[in-house]
């Protein structure tokens, strides 16, 4: 059996420096935004007492969900024994760590008191799903780091399958935890569903793989590595299955709500009368993030179509998380069934929200941090195979 040859990327080109410069500028902008929000208070953002979680949370949740999904490629190799995926496993583990780091950075920097992070590390309320997540996230970093070590270190290779299994189980629990942040909100009709945990898991499969495909294609193209059709077509089919699964879960969620009389008003809001949220749902989440990628993935075999499909999944995914987080808060909480409600605290009306520049800069900064960490890691350690050409893959898998 021919072994796979990995090599660091060269990282001395002008393009690489330019990439890091752009990402660095975005990271600095994100940090400046966080400082401004901290200094002035959150009133300078679009967030309010009705929309307490805004654009930063959309980016943070998207990145955290995508992080666990990015690990899937490695899991398929280690846990399900598909040799074809093995050369991709290191990059998969790397993206899992960097995307999570980007998402957590956004989440932490948006806190009202980010300097009290140490409090969150020393005071725990174990009934809080947030407190569990602190352990799930830090545990994920540690487990994936060990998993990567078993892949990199030849003497540890024999433990790779077991570490892969642990990482796979951990990531399922982690995404269950992220989905349950919303699923456990019993008092809000748009959330309060056990379905959100598995929905978040399939969303992670889809978002994570879309990002993985784009990073893999960019990494190979920009470093002159061969990337054969065998690998790409396998990933193409997998992405299609994941996109379809997300659509299925979304359909079941809405159909269930449509069946329940007390949820009719909510569905009328989300699917029909919700303005920006309705538009984002149908055009962003369903069309750009679902139907279009399916048509591109199964309708044509071109690489551009794959790139467009992956981009569509990411844009649609952000729209989905936006509708879920912000649309879910904008919809008025049910306090008095059968009554019209008015108050100075905006009870009974759809809350307005307009993202502010600092919020967007913080969210984008998190994405930039994830990508910058990835780019630097690729230069420091051999994450990428020398070649993913069809012949080399077949030889390695043989």
């Amino acid at each position, binding site marked *: 059996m021919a072994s796979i040859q990995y090599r660091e990327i060269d990282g001395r080109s002008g393009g690489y420096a330019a990439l890091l410069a752009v990402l660095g500028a975005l990271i600095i902008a994100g940090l400046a935004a966080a400082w401004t929000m*901290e200094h*002035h*208070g*959150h*009133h300078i953002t679009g*967030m*309010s*007492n*009705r929309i*307490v*979680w805004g654009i930063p949370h959309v980016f943070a949740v998207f990145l955290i969900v995508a992080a666990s999904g990015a690990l899937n490629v490695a899991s398929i190799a280690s846990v399900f024994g598909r040799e074809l995926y093995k050369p991709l496993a290191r990059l998969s583990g790397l993206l899992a760590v960097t995307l999570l780091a980007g998402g957590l950075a956004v989440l932490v920097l948006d*806190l*009202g*008191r*980010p300097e*009290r*992070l140490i*409090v*969150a590390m020393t*005071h*725990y*309320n174990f*009934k*809080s*799903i*947030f*407190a569990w997540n*602190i352990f799930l996230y830090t545990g994920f970093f540690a487990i994936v780091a060990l998993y990567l070590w078993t892949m990199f270190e030849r003497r540890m290779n024999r433990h790779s399958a077991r570490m892969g299994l642990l990482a796979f189980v951990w990531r399922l629990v982690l995404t269950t935890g992220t989905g349950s*942040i919303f699923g*456990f*909100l*019993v*008092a*809000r009709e748009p959330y309060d569903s056990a379905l959100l945990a598995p929905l978040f898991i399939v969303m992670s499969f889809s978002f994570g793989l879309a990002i993985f495909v784009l990073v893999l294609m960019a990494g190979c193209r920009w470093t002159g590595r061969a990337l054969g059709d065998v690998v790409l077509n396998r990933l193409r089919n997998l992405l299609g299955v994941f996109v379809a699964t997300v659509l299925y879960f979304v359909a079941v969620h809405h159909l269930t709500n449509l069946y329940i009389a007390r949820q009719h008003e909510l569905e009328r809001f989300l699917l029909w009368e919700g303005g920006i949220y309705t538009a984002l749902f149908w055009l962003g989440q369903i069309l750009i993030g679902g139907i279009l990628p399916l048509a591109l993935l199964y309708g044509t075999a071109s690489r551009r179509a794959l790139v467009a499909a992956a981009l569509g999944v990411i844009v649609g995914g952000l729209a989905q998380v936006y509708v879920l987080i912000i649309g879910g*808060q904008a919809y008025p*909480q*049910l*306090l*008095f069934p*059968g*009554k*019209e*409600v*008015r*108050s*100075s*605290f*905006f*009870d009974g009306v759809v809350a*307005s929200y307009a993202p502010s520049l600092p919020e967007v800069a913080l969210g984008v900064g998190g994405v930039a941090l994830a990508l910058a960490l990835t780019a630097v890691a690729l230069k420091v350690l051999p994450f990428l195979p020398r070649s993913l050409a069809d012949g080399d893959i077949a030889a390695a898998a043989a």
Partner: protein
Amino acid sequence: MNPDRRQVLAWGAAATAAALAPGLRLVELAQARSPQEAASKLQRWGLLIDITKCGECDACVTACHEENGITSNARPATDAQWIRKVSLRDTRTGYAQTLPLMCQHCEHPPCVDVCPTGASFKRADGIVLVDKHTCIGCRYCVMACPYAARSFVHETVSGQKADVPRGKGTVEACTLCVHRVDRGATPACVEACGRDGGGAMAFGDLNDASSAIHRRLKSEPSSQIRADLALNTGVRYQGL
């Protein structure tokens, strides 16, 4: 004039009462809590609000915000509101009502469940509070509260009251005027409603069988907002 038998008995009863009263008062004092003593679960502080007596005034809101140093920055979307007047109109019949809404001081508070650091907590006597030193400003409690009773402090606060610490970047809500309750007084909203409003609000110990609030809850109909959530709120309403 010789006192008759009945009069003798009455004098005897009066003398007995006069002799026992200081003793009973001592028992009451002995049961009162010293400032050093922790809150006791023997008590469950709560409110009973008769909304048939609640008119269009906002005496409770003004008094609360004055008592607790809650000032407006003329930004309604981000200004803190510990108590608010809510107007209701029945969608079918058009029947209109108004009521004050604040933290309902649940026995099973969702805000306390979700708080990662334990900053949101419930005192033994049922008052739900936020520890300003351990709140990290994640706002998960605001997401979880069924009553939208919590506010996030969106900007620097000024004019704080010594009894009511506040801080930018943390979450806060009605404390049931815990600083007054611990001194044996009633919350500012209740006092103001009795003085300037319709006398719709009553405060007391829900556990104390001899308290007026307990007796009314036992003998008159009352309800909880979102009773379906089974949170056993400390704030009860009549006429809803």
